[in-house]
């Protein structure tokens, strides 16, 4: 897959495949419900200097895990979408409004997920989709903010992702968002913790390789939120970042922090061109 891997000796790779517990069909294509075509591999966006092709994390999962995402009745993440449809129509807060009162049908939100995080002109800040949802709740509905990466928020994120499935991620990195993007890029390449590892060490230099039984992906976030078989719940982007920095024996940033908003913008932009795919299934 990458130059380093090839020179890392074909023997090493073959042996790792023999001892690895799961097999991925890295050439498989993803079609959901027999109708939604998902782009799981495509040319890297021009701003990426060291990678030619970008891949959804789906590509690196086992055939069994891949299959769970191909049918909404098999995808455990879709149960949470149903919960969010109910919340979408529920009136909350002092203004006596629901999401539906301003936005109509959830399907009307198709394409929205693909552009986040993005610059919000009024607030003069880069907002993740979670921040925007809370913006609507506090500013439009007079309701309480949901906890970042909490259950209600992840359900709603799953709904918003699901209606954008198949639409290419297209996050703006220039204009007023540029300085946050630069900040995120710097974090991506910073080696953290006592293991002294950056995101790039694992997800740019070594995707396709195994760390023990873990088959490394490019760490893309086009498919969030993800339903993980490991913890049997929806998982948010920034919680995932937190887990990865913790695994470097590092001090993590907080979910919702400026650093993680910047990192989310940057990592999202590395997926420009892949389809929105959430809620996805991962291990």
């Amino acid at each position: 897959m990458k130059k380093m891997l090839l020179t890392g000796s074909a023997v090493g790779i073959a042996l790792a495949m023999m001892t690895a517990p799961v097999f991925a069909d890295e050439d498989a294509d993803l079609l959901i419900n027999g109708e939604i075509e998902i782009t799981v591999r495509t040319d890297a966006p021009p701003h990426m200097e060291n990678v030619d092709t970008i891949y959804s994390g789906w590509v690196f999962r086992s055939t069994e895990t891949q299959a769970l995402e191909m049918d909404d009745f098999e995808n455990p993440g879709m149960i949470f979408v149903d919960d969010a449809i109910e919340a979408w129509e529920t009136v909350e807060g002092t203004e006596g409004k629901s999401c539906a009162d301003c936005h109509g049908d959830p399907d009307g939100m198709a394409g929205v997920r693909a552009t986040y995080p993005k610059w919000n002109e009024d607030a003069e800040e880069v907002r993740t989709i979670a921040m925007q949802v809370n913006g609507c709740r506090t500013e439009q509905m007079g309701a309480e903010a949901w906890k970042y990466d909490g259950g209600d928020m992840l359900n709603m994120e799953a709904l918003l992702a699901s209606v954008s499935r198949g639409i290419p991620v297209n996050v703006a990195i220039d204009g007023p968002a540029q300085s946050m993007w630069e900040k995120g890029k710097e974090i991506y390449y910073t080696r953290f913790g006592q293991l002294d590892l950056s995101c790039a060490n694992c997800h740019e230099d070594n995707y396709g390789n195994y760390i023990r039984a873990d088959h490394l992906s490019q760490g893309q976030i086009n498919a969030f939120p993800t339903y993980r078989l490991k913890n049997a719940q929806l998982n948010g982007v920034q919680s995932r970042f937190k887990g990865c920095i913790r695994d470097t024996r590092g001090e993590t940033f907080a979910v919702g922090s400026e650093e993680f908003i910047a990192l989310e913008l940057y990592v999202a932009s590395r997926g420009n061109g892949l389809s929105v795919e959430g809620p996805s299934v991962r291990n």
Partner: protein
Amino acid sequence: MKRIMTLACIATMASAAFAETAPDDVAFTQYGELEQSLSGQPGDPEAGKAIMVARGKGNCIACHQVTALEEFPFHGNVGPSLDGIGSRRSAAELRGIIVNAKMTFEGTIMPAFYRVSDFTRPGDAFTGKAADGPLSPLLTAQEIEDVVAYLQTLQD
């Protein structure tokens, strides 16, 4: 008086022979080698083998394939196979690589197993919280000697 001097002399010799080198005091050659035992003692290859495969210790097979360790699944392939490494590399080279592989391979992903300073946001082990107080190295001086001894048994 004479007796005291002899004792003092032996004590100095002993502490010199068994002196442990602290992580911040290791002195690499220009090629990243370390000639002296870190613990002042020889390593035990059997103990080294256990450290190689233990997740909470070296966990070397997370990144390296080693045919002699096949009974311990699963081996990663982020680093090169270590089969025959004992015939290719000297003890001094192996020690240097384990202590701080960046002195041998610039910018490598391989963590430094005997280094305690100059990290960005070091944590308190795998808790995600900030480290409270000085860091301990990932492996002790003797554990590194044990791993070096084990690697020397891997001959072509």
